[in-house]
């Protein structure tokens, strides 16, 4: 892992020029919201249909929320075979920032770009309300612009939000204050080892203006846009203690 906090000052491009691919699968429904929020954050988002097979001109990619393929079989199960997922995997491997929100998070897990899987909320009902999450690790594309322990208010909106990770390799970067869905280790957001691939269950793109109930999502989106590519292999400043791992 590496600390993106240091990268922000170094090589990463100014947000205004960041080209973000927002992937649209059949059944995706948060793509317009994600694009709206990213634009508000200063980036240049483009909606990309899942049949497209290259992402050459993009700096980073967002898999927005929704119900790709109706969540049939398993959430994210069918979407991971879409042609676009090849290039998404390549960007992940190249250290470029990759963010999955809600259903996008589930797709990243099914695709093996993040460890773990999702099952039904422990309460067995859909949950749509604001929740508070705490920054458990700042070394990820989503959280490097935050401070450890910082509390952030975001809307949760899912039925299969209950994260399980038998491998105990997922790094929790955001943790629920009151674990509303039973997620392992209270995981609200999980990153890969390098920190460039992040999945977040609550919706930062829904918390971008005061009159919508919170602006905290902007902190995370700006952080993500400011991340820039990550040269892997360096060791993190302030690497995460074991306890922040999802199994901890």
């Amino acid at each position, binding site marked *: 892992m590496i600390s993106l906090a240091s990268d922000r000052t170094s090589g990463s491009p100014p947000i205004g020029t960041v080209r973000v691919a927002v992937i649209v699968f059949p059944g995706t429904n948060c793509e317009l919201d994600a694009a709206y929020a990213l634009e508000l954050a200063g980036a240049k988002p483009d909606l990309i249909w899942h049949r497209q097979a290259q992402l050459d001109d993009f700096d980073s990619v967002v898999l927005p929320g929704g119900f790709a393929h109706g969540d049939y*079989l*398993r959430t994210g*199960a*069918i979407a991971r*075979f879409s042609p676009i997922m090849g290039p998404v995997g390549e960007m992940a491997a190249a250290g470029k920032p990759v963010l999955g929100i809600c259903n996008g998070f589930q797709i990243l*897990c*099914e695709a093996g770009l993040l*460890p*773990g*899987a999702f*099952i*039904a*909320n*422990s*309460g*067995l009902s859909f949950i749509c309300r604001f929740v508070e999450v705490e920054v458990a690790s700042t070394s990820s594309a989503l959280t490097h612009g935050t401070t450890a322990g910082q509390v952030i208010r975001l809307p949760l909106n899912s039925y299969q939000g*209950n994260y*399980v990770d*038998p*491998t105990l390799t997922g790094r929790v970067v955001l943790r629920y204050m009151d674990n509303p869905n*039973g997620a392992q280790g209270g995981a609200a957001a999980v990153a890969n080892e390098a920190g460039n691939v992040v999945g977040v269950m609550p919706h930062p793109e829904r918390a971008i203006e005061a009159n919508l109930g919170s602006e905290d999502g902007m902190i995370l989106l700006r952080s993500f846009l400011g991340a820039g590519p990550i040269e892997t292999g360096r060791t993190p400043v302030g690497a995460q203690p074991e306890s922040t791992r999802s199994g901890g």
Partner: protein
Amino acid sequence: MKVRVEIVRRPEIADPQGVTVVRALRELGFGEVAEARFNRTIVLDLDGTDPLSARARVEEMCRRLLANPVIEDFDVQVIE
């Protein structure tokens, strides 16, 4: 040809539905219920006639799509 796939969630992975149903059953007076686990079964109707190759193909389908190796095992039976 009909092939039956049962997708079984690994015992160590939680099953909220099972937990909830046990509680509900006990409230209804079925106190003898100790545990309940929910699985998914998929009945596939396939063209072709060779049970052996059919089973092999369906196992392939399970590995690639139908089951999630992170939390699930699967069991395939040719039923007719």
